[in-house]
């Protein structure tokens, strides 16, 4: 199945991309996708950790959440608006 992953702020700069499409295996979780991203983007890899925020279809989720075909996932650092 296919999902879209969006990256923001410093993560976007580290990956050199704001958005990518990924093929993921059925039954994959957010953690699975994060591991794929770490392999694809070594510079980003070092920054992904407990502070990383993850959204699935515009809602915060944890790394254990399952992903579905067509999902839009987003990963980003702690927000700093205001």
């Amino acid at each position, binding site marked *: 199945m296919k999902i879209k992953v969006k990256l923001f702020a410093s993560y976007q700069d580290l990956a050199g991309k704001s958005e990518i499409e990924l093929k993921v295996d059925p039954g994959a979780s957010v953690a699975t996708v994060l591991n794929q991203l770490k392999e694809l983007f070594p510079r980003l890899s070092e920054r992904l950790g407990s502070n990383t925020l993850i959204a699935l279809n515009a809602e915060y989720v944890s790394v254990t959440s399952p992903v579905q075909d067509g999902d839009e996932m987003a990963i*980003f650092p702690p927000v*700093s608006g205001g």
Partner: protein
Amino acid sequence: MYLITEDVITSDAIIDQLRINTSGAIATFLGIAREFSNGRRVVHLEYQAYKPMAEKKLKEIGDEIYKKWQVDKVVIIHRVGVLKIGETSVFIAIAAPHRRPALEACAYGIERIKQIVPIWKKEIWEDGEVWIEGDPSKVS
């Protein structure tokens, strides 16, 4: 109204929409692009948003406010893109029958924006730039 916008934010037109007959108070909060940050001179700011999620989270904050306080109307607008020093980054306006709910809800609104709304600020200095990161303990 919950809006992420690239346009300059002004107050009067929005405040005029909040002049409804049950409201005796309007409180507003404006975040302003400040020139100095931890002693470094900022040339300008750049805000980036995950727009659909950011607007959804702004609405959630509004819903939280309507539940917690007796207020008539909530408006939250956040600007994105390049901001000059002195420009408004975020605008919150709350109309309520009485002053305390309006003021308390306004203070609550800006705290929550800094916690849950996917927007990031980049400071651009004369000799560099950095994406600012918020306090990760605050997300819920």
